[in-house]
């Protein structure tokens, strides 16, 4: 990251000097700093509200109820001998919080889940298939209602901020399926 960042910086400054407009650099930097502060205020205003709502949600029984149902839906993806009772619990909580969009709970449960899976992993140096599947579930987006994106669109005066709900569900669902299919295909090839 620091290489990319510095590279862009260097290229831009050199480019500005070559094209005889060195003053754009300092204008750009001062303008951007101002923009960055404004952007953060905008982002904060939607992020903080939803953080409050999701904190309420994660303390209701909705999460645990949904997580029980969710494991039945996703259990066929995991190998029985690679999964302990405890990891089952974390995995289902992780899936449920991802679907509801409770980011903090999702992160905590993803880390606990992968740790539990590692405990019952026979070769500690190598991922087993259930671990790869679990990671694939977490690198895909599963949130049903993209609340923060809708709020951000509304803040920028979108005519129809909710327009993205159905497209987002389609795109995330298809990309999750494709990613899981590629896990299965590549895993067989790996073995």
């Amino acid at each position, binding site marked *: 990251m620091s290489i990319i960042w510095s590279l862009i*910086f260097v290229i*831009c400054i050199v480019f*500005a000097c070559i*094209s005889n407009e060195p003053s*754009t*650099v300092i204008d750009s*930097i001062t303008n*951007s700093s101002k*923009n*960055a502060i404004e*952007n*953060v205020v*905008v*982002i904060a205003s939607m*992020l*903080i509200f*939803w*953080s*409050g*709502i999701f*904190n*309420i*949600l994660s303390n*209701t*029984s*909705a999460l645990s109820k949904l997580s029980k149902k969710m494991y039945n839906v996703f259990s066929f993806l995991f190998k029985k001998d690679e999964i302990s009772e405890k990891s089952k619990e974390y995995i289902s909580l992780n899936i449920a919080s991802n679907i509801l969009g409770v980011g903090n709970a999702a992160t905590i449960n*993803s*880390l606990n889940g*992968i740790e539990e899976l590692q405990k019952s992993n026979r070769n500690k140096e190598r*991922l087993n298939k259930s*671990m*790869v599947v679990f*990671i*694939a579930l977490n*690198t*895909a987006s599963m949130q049903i*209602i*993209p*609340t923060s*994106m809708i709020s*951000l*669109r509304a803040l*920028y005066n*979108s*005519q129809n901020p909710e*327009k993205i*709900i159905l*497209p*987002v569900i389609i*795109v*995330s669902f*298809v*990309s*999750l399926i494709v*990613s899981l299919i*590629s*896990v299965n295909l*590549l*895993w067989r090839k*790996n073995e």
Partner: protein
Amino acid sequence: MSSYIIPTFVLIVIITALIEKINIYNLFIDGIKIGLKTVYNIFPYIFAITIISGLINDTGILNNIKLFNIQGDILPLILMKPLSGGASTGLVVDIFNKYGPDSFNGLFASLIMASTETTLYVISIMSSKVKIKDMKLPIICGLIGDITAIILAVIITKIIV
């Protein structure tokens, strides 16, 4: 119709909490504290990325690059989203400022932002948690998913814009 979704969602959360006799106000306040911490944590990334994207825009370096007929602003977002949530949020805000959220670029950015995850970041924290370095398979599968999402998002955005 769809404008009812968000209010209904908030309503359901609050009513469920009321039925279960949970201390809603305190939880909301705690959630705000968590949110403030998140903002504090992502601010440096947003600042750094805004400076960089400002420089790219103002010096006009990327003006000539086009990918799938999309203006240069989308490319940095596609590259940044798998790495950092904060930085890509900064880029989305830039795009909204420049083109508006209902333009092709704005809709495409909204879709990418909401339907993909920070794939490489997620894999890196999970990798460090289990201390397994070989993450080739999850990286490939995660990126295959992301590329699918990008292609599909282009198609859908063209239809709905």
